[in-house]
């Protein structure tokens, strides 16, 4: 029995650097999983392996009952996964609305008025509606982060992957983003969220995994994981008995 998203012994290395080391875990449909780990631990690479931007050296990725390991990124996206990027990467020469429309028409397969209506709904949810006709390149950081989220949502994902979306935001901005993500989760979307802003993460996720040097080193209930000596030492850089 495999989970909604199942990574099975996924391994990827670039020369001597291993970014995923026999990574194995599952995410159930409707769950929200948090991912933490030090910089360079292989968290973003893990997203690249799930979305198909990177091919693993070995191991399998199953999504929604299908082996997607050899599927290209475009097909995986159309089968229901979408992600946001740590460093926002909008189509900067296009407007916010057009960015959303690309995802709605290409990934979610909507067309015409249906696509437009759907995009406007998502833009309202992500609080970007008033910037719909702004060129994406002209948005503020929060705007760009919201656009990342908008574009991912317009793909109508079953699985939404968020990569440090709260990083670099002010407290107030962060709080409103967390509220939006909670709403998305409540609507039934499965979420995997990589984040350094731990309090934001803990407000949403049901379960936490810790990654270091491409290896999963801990997994479990978020608050318990955060208190575990391993995490205190490796992730926060604090000696366990200090």
């Amino acid at each position, binding site marked *: 029995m495999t989970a909604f998203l199942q990574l099975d012994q996924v391994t990827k290395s670039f020369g001597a650097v291993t970014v995923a080391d026999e990574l194995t875990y599952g995410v159930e449909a409707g769950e929200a999983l948090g991912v933490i780990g030090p910089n360079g631990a292989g968290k973003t690479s893990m997203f690249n392996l799930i979305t198909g931007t990177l091919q693993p050296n070995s191991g399998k990725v199953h999504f929604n009952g299908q082996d997607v390991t050899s599927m290209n990124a475009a*097909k995986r*996206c159309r089968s229901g996964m979408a992600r946001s990027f740590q460093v926002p990467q909008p189509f*900067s020469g*296009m407007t916010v609305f*057009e960015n959303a429309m*690309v995802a709605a*028409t*290409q*990934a979610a397969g909507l067309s015409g008025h249906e696509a437009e209506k759907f995009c406007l709904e998502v833009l309202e949810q992500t609080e970007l509606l008033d910037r719909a006709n702004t060129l994406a390149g002209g948005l503020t950081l929060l705007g760009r982060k919201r656009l990342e989220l908008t574009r991912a949502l317009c793909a109508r994902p079953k699985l939404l992957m968020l990569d440090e979306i709260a990083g670099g935001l002010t407290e107030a901005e962060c709080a409103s983003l967390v509220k939006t993500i909670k709403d998305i989760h409540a609507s039934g979307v499965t979420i995997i969220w990589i984040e350094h802003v731990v309090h934001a993460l803990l407000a949403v996720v049901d379960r936490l995994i810790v990654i270091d040097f491409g290896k999963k080193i801990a997994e479990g209930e978020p608050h318990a994981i955060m208190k575990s000596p391993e995490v205190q030492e490796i992730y926060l850089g604090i000696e366990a008995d200090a």
Partner: protein
Amino acid sequence: MEWVNAVVQGTLLGGLYALFAAGLSLIFGVMRLVNIAHGDMIVLGAYLGLSVTAILGIHPLMALIIVVPCMAVIGYVLQRSILNQTLGGDLLPPLLVTFGLSVILQNALLEIYTADPQKMNAGSLETASVSVGGLSLGVLPLLTFAIAVAVIAALQWTFYRTALGRAFRATSDNQEIAQLMGLNRRHIFGLAMALALGVTAIAGIMLGIRTSFDPSIGGGRLIFGFEAVIIGGLGNLWGTLAGGVILGVAQTVGAKIDPGWQLLAGHLVFLAILAVRPNGLFPRISG
């Protein structure tokens, strides 16, 4: 009045140059591919038009109905089978491969159609003219210009108002992210090349009705196309039309000063603009 006439005739000639350039501009805009074989593809379009009119006995303009889809299919297959493999970080492979294609096309056309200059017979359309305010304007150049404006407007509409256009722009903007939005880059590039060669077919047939052609003239058409694109500013379709018009006017005014100066005047104006505005007159505003 003679000068006014030269400017007006040059403007109309610019329509043809804009048609030469539109396909080139589109391909570069979407996939950063510089197609050295573009001129030969224009000539290929003209020869396909010639064959269709000869075999079916129809008017060259009617031949568009057959030649445009034919060239579009050729474009899609060419992109998927060959050109997609050359695209990557390096600009050199596509240059070399399209240069090779240019040589192959020229020689294939030479084998099939010989080096004799050919011309399409468009009957009375070739000589028909209308008189406007003391100027005598050929119906064919007017029609060519109108087609150029229509083609540019249609491309512009496609780019900014349709899902396909957004797919082109998204892919052009950031290929990796486009893949993650469910866009198959190879297919999108195939469609862009199909659209570009469809436009090129129109350019080829308008060329073939206007003047005689032979397999070797592709290089010259490529230069005019390039100059129009660069004068107008890369990636700006209306700019390309303006670039074509500026080039056309420079040529006819040059020819008015001295008949030997036609091409030289065009190139000089191009160089002057390049020196003053290296990005062209109307570069696309980027966010």
